[in-house]
């Protein structure tokens, strides 16, 4: 019996099962992406990407949804990036370790954990009703911006803290003020890290449905929004509508929408990762 339980043999058996478990996780991912690409690409065409939906969304393209998501992403970055970077600068350059910093950190952790549908309700209660923006691109972008803040802050803070102390010391010794030091000696070197974090958080925001359900999303709007106070269609919500709300939509049309959404998210992730690795190899310290 003891001979059977030889440690080397145990190790082999255990490692085999660990490999199996990992494959159980990773293979379905490949399968899911594979299915979407294969079945979605059949409907993909120039018309699908650039035309308005027709016949109650059962035919035509998805351009308004693509455009709506684009507007939301731009709106999100406009609101979230400045606040996120300044917040990270505060945490990394100005704050002292203490109770306030700890409190901010806790707030960030909790913001990151708030369920997306709760963000949706908050956006509805605060931006749509209380600030009276109505269901609009503005309200939706602001809601997504609040949701993206924790990721942007955390990534930017790490990027700022990775800049060596000596950079700051040299700048001070030349007579620069604190802000000049941050602006010219620290921020430029942290920029790639900040960009990567921002793009990754935006890719998440672009794919979210629950926060935009009540703040911006329009069920079926076969025209483009004219201002930030208009409702808009959005890709994730469009997929939700096609797959659960409208009966008898061709499955291919749903796969096509899913493919565009996944392609967008994956593309943004790849851009983020490429920026990170490109600057990592260029880093001189």
């Amino acid at each position, binding site marked *: 019996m003891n001979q059977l339980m030889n440690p*080397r043999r145990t*190790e082999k058996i*255990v490692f085999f099962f*660990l*490999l199996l478990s*990992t494959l159980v*996780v*990773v293979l*379905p*991912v490949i399968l899911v992406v594979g*299915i*979407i690409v294969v079945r979605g690409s059949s409907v993909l065409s120039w018309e699908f990407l650039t035309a308005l939906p027709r016949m109650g969304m059962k035919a035509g393209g998805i351009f308004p949804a693509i455009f709506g998501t684009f507007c939301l992403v731009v709106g999100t970055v406009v609101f979230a990036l*400045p*606040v996120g*970077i*300044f*917040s990270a*600068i*505060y945490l990394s350059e*100005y*704050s002292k370790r203490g109770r306030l910093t700890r409190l*901010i950190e806790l*707030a960030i*952790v*909790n*913001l990151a*954990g*708030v*369920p*997306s*549908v*709760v*963000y*949706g*309700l*908050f956006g509805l*209660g605060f931006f749509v009703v209380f600030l009276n923006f109505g269901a609009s691109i503005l309200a939706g972008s602001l809601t997504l911006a*609040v949701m993206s*803040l924790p990721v942007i802050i955390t990534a930017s803070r790490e990027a700022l803290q990775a800049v060596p102390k000596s950079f700051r010391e040299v700048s001070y010794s030349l007579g620069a*003020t*604190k*802000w000049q030091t941050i602006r010219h000696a620290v921020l430029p070197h942290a920029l790639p890290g900040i960009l990567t974090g921002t793009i990754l958080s935006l*890719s*998440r925001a*672009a*794919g*979210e*449905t*629950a926060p935009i359900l009540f703040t911006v999303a329009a069920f079926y709007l076969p025209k483009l929004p004219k201002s930030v106070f208009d409702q808009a269609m959005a890709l*994730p*919500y469009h*997929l*939700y509508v096609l*797959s659960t709300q409208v009966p008898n939509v061709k499955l291919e049309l*749903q796969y096509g929408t*899913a493919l565009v*959404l996944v392609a967008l*998210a*994956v593309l943004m*992730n790849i851009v983020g990762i490429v920026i990170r690795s490109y600057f990592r190899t260029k880093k001189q310290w």
Partner: protein
Amino acid sequence: MRRYYERVVEGLVFASGMASIIFVILIFVFLLKEGLMLFREFSVIKFLLGKHWYPISEPPQFGTLPLILGSLWVTLGATAISVPLGIACAIFIGEIASGWLREVLKAGVELLAAIPSIVLGFIGLVTLVPLVKNMFGLSTGLTAFSGSVMLAFMAMPTIVSIMEDALNLVPKTYREGSIAMGATKWQTIRRIILPSAASGIIAAVMLGFGRVIGETMAVMMITGNAAVIPKSIFQPVRTMTATIAAEMGETVQGSDHYFALFAVAILLFVITFAVNFLADWFLHRKKAR
């Protein structure tokens, strides 16, 4: 002039620094402001323990027990599946695999994190749901079980990446000491690395739990949305998140139903707040050591 400029910038930086705190408070205040309105007429006890969620009957019933239990069943099911798999995955990727295999597996998990939840919900709807229906001979595949499987899958990137970080934090000398004493790699992982990384692993499990209980769209599409107290995991259930997402569009602003959905959101906010707070505490305990 320059000093004035500096002061303005510092004020701006400080204000932005406080943004996270302000938003957490704002979220809580606005949920409370709307949610508490329900309790002018409806008792808190009936809300928490009532067995019936009939928001549009007359008089309406806002008992959240079916929703809370629905969320709990789906979440516990997902946790039971994702924790062992997640630990195995993190160990294999972090400690055992090397070279191209490691990179491929890592990329696979990262790819999963990049897929929007609505897409996974859609794929689950067209593949997993019929599969569950046929496999277990059920009348519908839209069950708590399908939701659990889907959510376990969705929680995997969170769990694996945080656990991998926890494993990486274990000092190299621990491993070297163990290997030098003649232990096999697996003995080292089991007796040395896993115990040392325990707090990080617990934190990963909790954050995974928080991720799962807050998931909305996929769960709404897959679990069948029947607001009844579930008797088995092979029945349709409705989670708290799905209830909010599905019903908010149909409510009249300022109606009791509208307030009740905000009250459900308060519950969700409090639960996730507690889970994240605890997880952070476990992570911090680790750092302090």
